[in-house]
C-alpha cells in the first residue's frame, strides 16, 4: 500500500466519522488571511501572528522555496525560519512612539488539505517585545501595523487584550476573536471579511479591569479571549495535518506560550462523498473502503433534515405500521431517492444545454410537497371520520403478527374480523405515495457524485457508490421506522391504548404530514422563484 492509498484510507476514515476537513478554502483559493492578537502585559507585549494561505499561494510558496508538504522536513524548518523573519520585517509595533523589537519566541507550520485534498498552509508565530519600565508609567499609546501581503485578498483580523492590572483605555480593534485564530471563519462575514491591518491602543497601569475591552462593536461569534484560546483544548489539529512546532528558548515550552494552529472548520457544498470520486487510483481495497464509507455517509445523510425520516416516523407512529411497514417504507423512500438521482442525472446529462439541475429541484420539491400534503389531508379526514364511527374502540388495529403483543388485539367489541383488518392495515398505496414523495427529491450531494463520476469517466463506480449510499440511507430509515413502531407499541402498552394513542396520535401525525407537505411546497415555490416573499 503506497502513501497515497494510506492517505486516501485515512481520509475515508475521517469522513466516516463526519469530519470533513478537505474542503476549499472559505475565503477563496487565492486568499492569504492574517490574524494578529496583541497581548499587552506589564513587562512585555506578546504578538500572536498567524498567516493562512489558501491553495494557490501555498502552491507558489512550495514552488518558489522548493519545499515539500511535510512540516518535519528540514527544508520546511529552514523555510519556516526564513519566512518568520520576512514576515516579522513586515510588521511594526510601537509603544509611546518608540519602535519595539519583536523577538520570535515560537513558530509553527501546518499543511491542512484544502480543495480536492490540495495543500493549504498556515504559519503561526509568537513574538515577544520587552517593554521599557519607564514606558508603562501613565497612559501609553501602542501602534501596530501589518504590512505583509499588501492588497492581497483575505481575512485580516487584529485583536487586542491586556493583562490583569492593565487598563485598555481605548482601542481601534476588538478584544474578541472572530475567526478562532483563522480556524473558524464566521460564514456571514465571508463576503466582506474584516480588513484590519492597523491598530491603535491606549493603555495604562491602573485599576484592575476586565482583561478584555471590546471597543468597536464586536461582531463576535465566539467570545473567546486570548487567554481562553491559549488554554483551549477545543482547537486541535486534524489527524491528517502535518505540523511542526518549534519552541525557541527554554523558558517558553509551556502550552500557552507556544503556537497551536488548527485547520479550517468550514465545510462547503463539496462534501466528503464528492471528494471520494477524485481518488485517482482505484484498487479493490479502495473501492471496498469507498463503498463502506458511502454506506456510512448514506446512514448519516438520512439523519439530516429533509430526507423523509420525519415522514417515515410520523407516518408509522400514526398509522399503526408494523416492522414490515417500516422496512417497506424505508426501502421505498430509498428506492425513489436513488431513482430520483439517476433520473435527474440522466436528464442533466442529456439536456445539460437547456436545463440547470438547480431549476429542477423546485419542481421535484413542488410535486412531492403537493403529494405529501394531499396524502396528509386524506389521512386526516379518514382518521377523523373513523373516530366518529368507531368511537371508543379504535385500538384493535394491530396486525396479529405485530411483534409479540397479541394481547392488544382481542376483538371484544363485536367488530368483525374483516373490518378490523381493513382498519388496521397500512395500505400499500399510502406507503408507496408517501415513500415516493418523501424520497423523490434527490440530494445534491448524490447528484454531484453521479455527475462527477460521469465527467471523470467512472460511471460504474459512481453508480455503485450511489447504491452503497442508498443502502446506508435505507438502513438508517428502516432503523428509525422500527424504533418508531416499537416506541408506539411501548407507549400504547403504557397507556393501555388510551385516547392519546388511539385518537390523537393518528390525527396529529396526519396533520403533521399535511403540514410537512405544505412546508415542502412553500419551500419549492420560493426557491423556484414561483412566488416572492
Amino acid at each position, binding site marked *: 500500500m503506497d502513501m497515497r492509498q494510506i492517505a486516501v484510507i485515512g481520509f475515508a476514515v475521517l469522513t466516516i466519522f463526519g469530519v470533513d476537513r478537505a474542503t476549499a478554502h472559505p475565503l477563496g483559493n*487565492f486568499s492569504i488571511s492574517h490574524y494578529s492578537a496583541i497581548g499587552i502585559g506589564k513587562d512585555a507585549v506578546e504578538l500572536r501572528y498567524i498567516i493562512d494561505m489558501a491553495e494557490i499561494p501555498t502552491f507558489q510558496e512550495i514552488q518558489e522555496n522548493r519545499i515539500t508538504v511535510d512540516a518535519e522536513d528540514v527544508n520546511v524548518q529552514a523555510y519556516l525560519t526564513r519566512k518568520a523573519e520576512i514576515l516579522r520585517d513586515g510588521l511594526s509595533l510601537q509603544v509611546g512612539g518608540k519602535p519595539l523589537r519583536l523577538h520570535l519566541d515560537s513558530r509553527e507550520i501546518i499543511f491542512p488539505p484544502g480543495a*480536492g485534498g490540495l495543500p493549504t498552509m498556515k504559519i503561526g508565530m509568537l513574538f515577544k517585545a520587552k517593554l521599557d519600565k519607564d514606558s508603562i508609567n501613565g497612559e501609553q499609546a501602542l501602534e501596530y501595523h501589518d504590512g505583509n501581503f*499588501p492588497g492581497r485578498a483575505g481575512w485580516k483580523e487584529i485583536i487586542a487584550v491586556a493583562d490583569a492590572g492593565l487598563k485598555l483605555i481605548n482601542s481601534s480593534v476588538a478584544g474578541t476573536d472572530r475567526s478562532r485564530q483563522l480556524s473558524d471563519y464566521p460564514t456571514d462575514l465571508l463576503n466582506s471579511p474584516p480588513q484590519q491591518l492597523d491598530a491603535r491602543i491606549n493603555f495604562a497601569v491602573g485599576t484592575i479591569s476586565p482583561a478584555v475591552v471590546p471597543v468597536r462593536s464586536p461582531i463576535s461569534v465566539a467570545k473567546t479571549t486570548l487567554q481562553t484560546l491559549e488554554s483551549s483544548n477545543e482547537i486541535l489539529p486534524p489527524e491528517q495535518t502535518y505540523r511542526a512546532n518549534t519552541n525557541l528558548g527554554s523558558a517558553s515550552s509551556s502550552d500557552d506560550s507556544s503556537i497551536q494552529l488548527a485547520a479550517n472548520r468550514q465545510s462547503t457544498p463539496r462534501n466528503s462523498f464528492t471528494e471520494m470520486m477524485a481518488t485517482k487510483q482505484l484498487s479493490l481495497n479502495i473501492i471496498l473502503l469507498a463503498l463502506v464509507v458511502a454506506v456510512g455517509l448514506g446512514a448519516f445523510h438520512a439523519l439530516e433534515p429533509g430526507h423523509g425520516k420525519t415522514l417515515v416516523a410520523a407516518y408509522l407512529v400514526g398509522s399503526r405500521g408494523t416492522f414490515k411497514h417500516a422496512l417497506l417504507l424505508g426501502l421505498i423512500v430509498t428506492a425513489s431517492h436513488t431513482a430520483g438521482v439517476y433520473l435527474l442525472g440522466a436528464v442533466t446529462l442529456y439536456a445539460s444545454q437547456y436545463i440547470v439541475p438547480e431549476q429542477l429541484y423546485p419542481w421535484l420539491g413542488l410535486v412531492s410537497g403537493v403529494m405529501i400534503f394531499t396524502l396528509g389531508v386524506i389521512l386526516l379526514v379518514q382518521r377523523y371520520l373513523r373516530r366518529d364511527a368507531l368511537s371508543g374502540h379504535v385500538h384493535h388495529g394491530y396486525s396479529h403478527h405485530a411483534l409479540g403483543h397479541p394481547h392488544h388485539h382481542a376483538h371484544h367489541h363485536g367488530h368483525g374480523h374483516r373490518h378490523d383488518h381493513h382498519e388496521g392495515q397500512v395500505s400499500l398505496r399510502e406507503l408507496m405515495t408517501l415513500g415516493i414523495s418523501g424520497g423523490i427529491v434527490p440530494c445534491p450531494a448524490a447528484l454531484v457524485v453521479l455527475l462527477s463520476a460521469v465527467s471523470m469517466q467512472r460511471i460504474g463506480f459512481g453508480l455503485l457508490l450511489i447504491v452503497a449510499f442508498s443502502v446506508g440511507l435505507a438502513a438508517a430509515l428502516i432503523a428509525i421506522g422500527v424504533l418508531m413502531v416499537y416506541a408506539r407499541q411501548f407507549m400504547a402498552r403504557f397507556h393501555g391504548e388510551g385516547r392519546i394513542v388511539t385518537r390523537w396520535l393518528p390525527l396529529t401525525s396526519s396533520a403533521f404530514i399535511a403540514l410537512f407537505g405544505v412546508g415542502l411546497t412553500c419551500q419549492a415555490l420560493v426557491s423556484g422563484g414561483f412566488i416572492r416573499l
Partner: protein
Amino acid sequence: MAINSEDGDAYGILGDALLEVGRYAEAEAAYDHMVQLERSLYSYSRLAGLKSTRGDSAGAIADLERAVALGKAAKQPSEGIAWAEWQLGMEHFAIGDLLMAESCYRQSLQTYPNYYRALAGMAQLRTAQKSYDEAIDFYQKAIAILPMPDYAAALGDIYAKTGRDEQARQQYALVEYIGRLNDINKVLYNRELAYFYADHDLKLNLGLELAQRELDYRRDIYAYDLLAWNLYKNGRLDEARAAIEEALKLGTKDAKLFFHAGMIYSSLDAKAKATEFLALALSTNRNFHPVFSATAAEILERLEHSTDRAGVERQGQGG
C-alpha cells in the same frame, strides 16, 4: 426590472450577461436603455466594451473618457474609476498607442494604488517595449495581489524568452495548478487554461476539449477564437477557419484575433488572406505578444517573399 424598471444597474447586468453569451444586439439594447436611465461611470464603461468588440476603438475610447469623468464627478469608488482608466489603457494598447496606454495605466495606479489590473497592464506594456526586467517586476507585483492564470502565463513567457527556464516552468506550473483547482471547484469555463495549452503546444487534446466545453456556456467571439486556435493546433483546419470567421464577424480590432486568423489561413494555403490578417495583426499593434509578434512578422515575410518570387517567376515567364 419587474420591481423597478428605472433601475439602470439591472439593465447593465442583463447586458453583461448577454454580452458574455454572445447575444450582442440584445446586449446593446440593454446598455442603451441603461445609458438612457443613467449617464454614469458604469453605463459608459459598458457601452465602451461593446463598441470595442465591434471594432469601434475611437468610440470606445471616447466613452471610457466620459465614464472616467462622470465617475470622478460623482465621487464613485476609486476602484471603479481605476477600472475604467485601466480599460482605457487597454484600448490604447490594442491599437498600438503605447504612450497613451502608459499614461492611462499610471493614472489608474494613482487613482487606486497597486491596482492589479493596471500593474498587469504596465507589465504587458513593458513587454511590448522589450523592457523585460521591468515587465517581470510589474507582473510579480500583480501576481502578489491576485495570481491570475493569464498573468502567470505571460510572466512565464518573459522568463522563457529571457532564458530563465526554471522560473518559466514554475509560472507555467502555476497556470496548470489554477486550472486544476478550477476543475475541482467545478468552474464552468477555463478559457485562460485553454489559451495557455494552445499557445504553448501543450496538452492539445485537453485544450480543444476545454475550448469546446467553453462554447457550451459562452458563445461570445472569444469563445470562437479560442475554439479556432485550438482546432488549428490540433490540425483541424477547415473547422478552425469556420470558427475564426465567426470570431471575426463583429470586426473586432484585436491583433490576437488577426494573428490567429493569419496562421489558420496560412496553413490552409490561402496566401492572400494569410498575408492580409498577419499584416493587420502587426499594423494594429506591432508588439501585441512577446513571442507571436515575431512569429507573425516572420511568416508574413515568408509569404510576401514567396508571392514576390512567384510574381517574378510569372513576369519572367511572361517576358
